[in-house]
């Protein structure tokens, strides 16, 4: 079994986690830029963080045979702090990187005017840099937040097939699926989604455009819940091919739209995508 975790904050995780992930079949991860537990107070704090998720963290991951890519953005919560917003001007430098495969996490936290502005501006950056977009949906007032996110995506002109809406659940999945975006689900120990609830959603809505992630970070979370979900799928009668599709080929297909996903040095991937073993552009 090979696992691609399309959303995990490895900067908050230990080397023990990397070892357990590698031992369990996790071969590739994407680390989206987001908030840390402690609010930041300026652009320099962001750029050091961005440097870490495009520099030090891929190096750490490589020591365990795990391929690490990143997504870059000003997250919605900190978009509300005027001291942080100047980081928007520095984003183009980072969105040009080989290892950056999407703009994200963008979207809404509290649905403020400042969040509106940062969300729209960063969807425009995704278009400029020919990158997909990873959109965080709010944890509070979720259904309304989802609808508003879909409206902003539509207004931006970006192809919905290049957008993933994350942290979906039973209440929000249908509207997202109707809009034609990719469907991201975060599997958590107590909150968000569980492996069994995920399996039920896969039964009802099918495996097309579904992305399953652990979104593991500095809170109570578990980097192996992707693996537990794959096991729950198998137990429920999904084929090996379905499991591989959801836990590997779907995230590969989504992020390969960047033209920068490079899995050439990942072992045991066993297959190619669209006939290419090297997925980044120009190959």
């Amino acid at each position, binding site marked *: 079994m090979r696992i691609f975790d399309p959303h995990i904050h490895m900067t908050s995780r230990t080397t023990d986690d990397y070892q357990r992930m590698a031992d369990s079949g996790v071969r590739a991860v994407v680390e989206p830029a987001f908030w840390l537990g402690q609010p930041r107070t300026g652009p320099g704090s962001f750029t050091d963080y961005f440097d870490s998720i495009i520099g030090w963290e891929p190096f750490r991951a490589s020591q365990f045979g795990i391929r690490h890519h990143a997504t870059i953005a000003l997250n919605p919560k900190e978009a509300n702090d005027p001291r942080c917003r100047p980081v928007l001007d520095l984003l183009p430098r980072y969105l*040009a990187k080989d290892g950056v495969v999407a703009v994200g996490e963008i979207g809404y936290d509290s649905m403020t005017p400042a969040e509106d502005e940062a969300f729209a501006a960063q969807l425009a950056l995704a278009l400029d840099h020919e990158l997909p977009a990873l959109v965080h949906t709010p944890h509070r007032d979720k259904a309304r937040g989802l609808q508003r996110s879909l409206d902003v995506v539509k207004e931006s002109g970006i192809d919905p097939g290049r957008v993933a809406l994350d942290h979906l659940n039973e209440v929000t999945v249908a509207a997202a699926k109707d809009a034609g975006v990719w469907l991201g689900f975060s599997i958590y120990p107590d909150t968000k989604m569980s492996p069994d609830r995920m399996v039920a959603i896969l039964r009802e809505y099918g495996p097309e455009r579904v992305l399953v992630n652990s979104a593991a970070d500095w809170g109570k979370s578990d980097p192996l819940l992707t693996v537990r979900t794959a096991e729950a799928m198998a137990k429920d009668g999904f084929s090996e091919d379905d499991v591989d599709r959801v836990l590997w080929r779907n995230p590969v297909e989504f992020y390969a739209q960047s*033209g920068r996903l490079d899995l050439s040095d990942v072992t045991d991937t066993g297959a190619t995508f669209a006939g290419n073993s090297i997925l980044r552009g120009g190959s």
Partner: protein
Amino acid sequence: MTTLDDLRTTLAGNERLTEDLDRVREKPEAVGGLFPAAGRRYGREPLTDGWTTDEAARALLLAGSPTEEVLNAYRYGDTAEKLAVLKALPLLPIGDDGVPLLEDALRTNDTRLVAAALGPYADRLEPDAWRQAVLKCVFMGVPLAGVHRLHERADAPLKDMLRAFAAEREAAGREVPLDARNLLDETQEA
């Protein structure tokens, strides 16, 4: 050693690069978007003398840029970009202005950056910093074979540091890397 003119000759047929170098001449800040995209824009094929196309193209982009943009390319670079800046440093007309970049690379725990900081441009490092860098290589398992002018620069204080390092490793029942052992033997004879 490979020169900028060698790289220019080798990449003369890369039309996209030629156009981009003209762009940078007119608008130096354009290098901020072009430098990270070098692999995607100009290719990654190996050239002669241990250079790849993207590394060589990056060196030429920097050669046409003011020092501030060279420093920014490193400051905002991912690891491959930082490695390309370090590799280009001895070819660039920037005097000692790149020394802080070596010092930054030597503060990291990324073995690739530490190794790349000890090329020909490391002649500009003060002896104390250079000795610490060599010892750090031994400590991290970075092969000493890549350290520029190692045998010429290895002096008595470095020998003392290596001897203390070896004693500490032996006391712990751990191996002393062979290249460090050889260097110690060699400097003891000198």
